[in-house]
C-alpha cells in the first residue's frame, strides 16, 4: 500500500488505531458498513437460492419427491422471507448505497454515521432472530412471506411470533438507512454538486429513501398487530369477533407494494449509471429519469390494492386501483426508453457490467409487461394466485433487481477491491444466468395462464412438462450464479490490479484511488460538471 497516510485503503487498519474485528463491527465508516452488508446479503442470497433450488427439486414431478407438504410450506415461506427482507430490500441501498452514495456526492460520510452502524446492528439482530425462529417453538413459519390472517394469527401453530418480530426489526433497520440517505443527500452535497449534477444512482436512492421512511412504518404496525393478535387475541382481523381480515391485506400491501419500488428503484439507478459509462455519452433525458424515480415513489404508494382484486373489494375500488397501476407503468417506461436512447449512437464498450445491464432491460421489460396483465382487473381474475404471478414477480425482482445488483457488483468491483475479475468468465456467467433464468421462469408464465396455482405442493399431470423444464432451468441458473460468485471471489483475491478508473467513469467515485482510502477525499471536491460528462476522461489500464 502507498506510504501516504491518507491513501491507506479502507480495508487496511487505519494507522494509529488497533484494528481487529471491533474496527469493523463498530465502524462508523460508510464503506466498511456497506461491505459488511454486502457479505451478509450475499450469504443470505446463497441460502435463499438453495431453498429455491430445493422447491424446484420437489416440483420436478407430481406427488412427493424429496420433502413432505409441511416442509414444502416452510421452504417457500423461508425462501420468501429471506429473499425479500434479508436480501432484496437491503441489497443495493444498504450495500452499494452505503459505499458509494457519500462518495458520489463528494461527502466524507453519511449524515448520521453512528446511526448507520446501528442500522447494520439491527440488520444483524433481525437476521439472527429470523434464524432463531427456525429452530425454536413449533418449527419455522409456514404462512408464506405475506403472513396473511387468519392463517398467521389463529390457525398456524408454527413460530410466527419470532419471525414477525424479526421483520419488525429489519424494517426499522431499513427506515434508518432511508432516513440517513435522505438527510445526507439534502445536507452533505459537495460545493457545486447541484441536484442535477448528482449521479442518477443518488436520485434513485433519494426516492427509495422516502419510500422507506413513509411506507415501512406501516409494515411495522402490521406485524406488531399480528403479534398482538397471537398474544392477546384482540380479534381485529378475526370475523368471529367482529374484525375484518381484508383490512390486514390492506395494511400489509400499503407497505409491501411500495416495497417493490424499494427493491427496484436502486437497481434502476445502477442501470442509469452504468449505461452512459459504457456507451461513452451523456445519459438521454437526465431530468426525466430523475423525475420518474420520484414519480414512481409517489404513484407506487397509491396502487397497493391491485394485489386484492379478488378479495371482494367494491368494483369502484378495483377500477381506481387498476387505473393507478397503469399510471405507474408510465415512469417505468420513460426510464426504459431513455436507456435505449442513451445507447443510440454511443461508442459502446461491451464489458460485463453492460451485459448485465442489457439483460436487466430485457428481463425487466418482460416483467413490466406481464405486470400490466396483472394490473388490469379483468385479466387478473384469470391469473390471480397462479404461477403467472410467480413468473412475473421473479422477472421484475430477480430479472430487475437481481441483474441490477449483479451489474453493480461487476461495475464497482474494481473500485471496491482495486482488482479486476476475469472478464471472459464474467460474460460466460452472465449468459448462463440469463439462459437459465428464462428457462426457469418463462414456463411459469405459461403454466400460470393454463391455471397452475401458486404455492401448491402437488399438481395435475398436465403441468409436468412445464415444471420439468422450469426445474432444469433452475439447475442452469444455479450453475451460472455459482460461476459468477466464484469468479468474483477469485478476482477479489488474485485479480489483476487496477488503478482508479478502469471504466472511464466521470462521477466522483472514479476520481479517488481504488480501494477508496479511509478518508474519501484528500481535498474537498468542487464539482463543475455533470456525472456523465466524459470529455477528457480516459480509461485506466489494469495490470
Amino acid at each position, binding site marked *: 500500500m502507498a506510504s501516504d497516510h491518507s491513501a491507506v485503503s479502507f480495508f487496511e487498519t487505519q494507522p494509529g488505531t488497533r484494528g481487529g474485528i471491533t474496527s469493523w463491527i463498530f465502524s462508523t465508516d460508510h464503506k466498511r458498513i456497506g461491505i459488511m452488508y454486502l457479505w451478509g446479503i450475499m450469504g443470505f442470497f446463497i441460502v435463499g437460492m438453495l431453498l429455491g433450488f430445493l422447491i424446484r427439486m420437489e416440483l420436478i414431478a407430481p406427488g412427493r419427491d424429496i420433502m413432505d407438504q409441511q416442509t414444502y410450506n416452510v421452504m417457500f415461506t423461508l425462501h420468501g422471507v429471506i429473499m425479500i427482507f434479508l436480501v432484496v430490500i437491503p441489497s443495493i441501498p444498504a450495500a452499494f448505497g452505503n459505499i458509494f452514495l457519500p462518495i458520489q456526492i463528494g461527502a466524507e460520510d453519511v*449524515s448520521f454515521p453512528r446511526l448507520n452502524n446501528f442500522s447494520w446492528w439491527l440488520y444483524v439482530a433481525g437476521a439472527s432472530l429470523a434464524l432463531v425462529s427456525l429452530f425454536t417453538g413449533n418449527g419455522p413459519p409456514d404462512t408464506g412471506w405475506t403472513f396473511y390472517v387468519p392463517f398467521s394469527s389463529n390457525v398456524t401453530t408454527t413460530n410466527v411470533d419470532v419471525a414477525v418480530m424479526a421483520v419488525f426489526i429489519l424494517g426499522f433497520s431499513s427506515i434508518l438507512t432511508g432516513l440517513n440517505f435522505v438527510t445526507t443527500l*439534502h445536507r452533505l452535497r459537495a460545493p457545486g454538486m447541484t441536484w442535477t449534477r448528482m449521479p442518477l444512482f443518488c436520485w434513485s436512492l433519494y426516492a427509495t429513501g422516502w419510500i422507506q421512511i413513509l411506507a415501512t412504518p406501516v409494515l411495522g*404496525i402490521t406485524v*406488531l398487530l399480528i403479534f398482538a393478535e397471537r398474544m392477546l387475541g*384482540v380479534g*381485529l382481523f378475526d370475523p368471529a369477533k367482529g374484525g375484518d381480515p381484508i383490512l390486514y391485506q390492506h*395494511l400489509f400491501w400499503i407497505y409491501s407494494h411500495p416495497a417493490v419500488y424499494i427493491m427496484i428503484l436502486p437497481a434502476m439507478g445502477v442501470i442509469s449509471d452504468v449505461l452512459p459509462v459504457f456507451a461513452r455519452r451523456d445519459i438521454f433525458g437526465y431530468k426525466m429519469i430523475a423525475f420518474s424515480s420520484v414519480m414512481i415513489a409517489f404513484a407506487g404508494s397509491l396502487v397497493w390494492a391491485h394485489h386484492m382484486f379478488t378479495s371482494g373489494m367494491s368494483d369502484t375500488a378495483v377500477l381506481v386501483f387498476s387505473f393507478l397501476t397503469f399510471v405507474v407503468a408510465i415512469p417505468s417506461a420513460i426510464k426504459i426508453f431513455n436507456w435505449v436512447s442513451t445507447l443510440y449512437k454511443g461508442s459502446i464498450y461491451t464489458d460485463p457490467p453492460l451485459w448485465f445491464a442489457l439483460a436487466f432491460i430485457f428481463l425487466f421489460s418482460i416483467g413490466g409487461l406481464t405486470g400490466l396483465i396483472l394490473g388490469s382487473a379483468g385479466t387478473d381474475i384469470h391469473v390471480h394466485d397462479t404461477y403467472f404471478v410467480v413468473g412475473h414477480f421473479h422477472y421484475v425482482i430477480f430479472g430487475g433487481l437481481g441483474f441490477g445488483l449483479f451489474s453493480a457488483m461487476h461495475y464497482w468491483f474494481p473500485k471496491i477491491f482495486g482488482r479486476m475479475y476475469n472478464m471472459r468468465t464474467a460474460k460466460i456467467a452472465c449468459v448462463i444466468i440469463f439462459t437459465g433464468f428464462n428457462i426457469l421462469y418463462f414456463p411459469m408464465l405459461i403454466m400460470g395462464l393454463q391455471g397452475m396455482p401458486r404455492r401448491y405442493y402437488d399438481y395435475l399431470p398436465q403441468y409436468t412438462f412445464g415444471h420439468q423444464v422450469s426445474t432444469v432451468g433452475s439447475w442452469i441458473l444455479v450453475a451460472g450464479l455459482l460461476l459468477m460468485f466464484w469468479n468474483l471471489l477469485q478476482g477479489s483475491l488474485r485479480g489483476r490490479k487496477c488503478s482508479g478508473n478502469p471504466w472511464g467513469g466521470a462521477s466522483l467515485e472514479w476520481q479517488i484511488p481504488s480501494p477508496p482510502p479511509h478518508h474519501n477525499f484528500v481535498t474537498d471536491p468542487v464539482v463543475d460538471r455533470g456525472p456523465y460528462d466524459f470529455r477528457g476522461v480516459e480509461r485506466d489500464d489494469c495490470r
Partner: protein
Amino acid sequence: MTVVKDYTGAKLGMWLFLFTEILLFGGLFLLYAAYLHRYPADFHLAGKELNVVLGATNTVVLISSSWLMALSISALQQGRVEQSKKLLLGTLACAGMFLVIKYFEWSAKIHHGIYPDSPELLARPAGEVMFFGLYYLMTGLHGLHVILGGGVITYAYVLILKGRVTPQDFVFLENAGLYWHLVDLVWIYLFPLFYLIA
C-alpha cells in the same frame, strides 16, 4: 479534521423520524376509521364507558408537560442551565403522572373484565370488541411512546449534567422536545377519538 455539527441536518433527520412515527400510528388510525364506519352505534356506547374526567386530566397533564419541555429548551438556549434542568424534571414528573393515571384507568377496566379476549368483552356486540381492542392497542402503543420519550428526556438530562448538551450545543434537547411534542400530539387525537366519541 474538525467535525462541524450539522444542526439543520440533525433536525431534518428528526423530522423524518417523526414522519415514520405518524405512519406507525397511521395504520391504527386507519383501522379505527374503518371500524368506526362499520359500527358507529357500538362505538358510541362503548365510548360512554370511558372515564372522561381521567382522560381530560391526562390531556391537561400531557399538554403541560409539552409546555414545560418547550420552556426548558428556551431556558437552555438562553443560558439558564439550572432552570432548564428543573423544567426537564417537571416534564418527567408530568410524564410519570400521565402513566400513573393511565394505569388506574386500565386496571379499573381490567377489573371489570374488559380486556382483549375476555369472556365479558366477547359477550358484547362486535363493535364494542373492536372499540376496546383498539383502545388497548392504541393507548398501549402511545403509553410505550411516553415511556420511551421519558427515557430520551432522562438521557438529555444526563447529557446536560455531563456538560455534553450546553447552551451552545442543544440540538439533542431540541430533538427530544420534538419527539415529546409528537407523543403529546398523538394523545390529542386519541383523546377525542375514544373519550369524546359518545
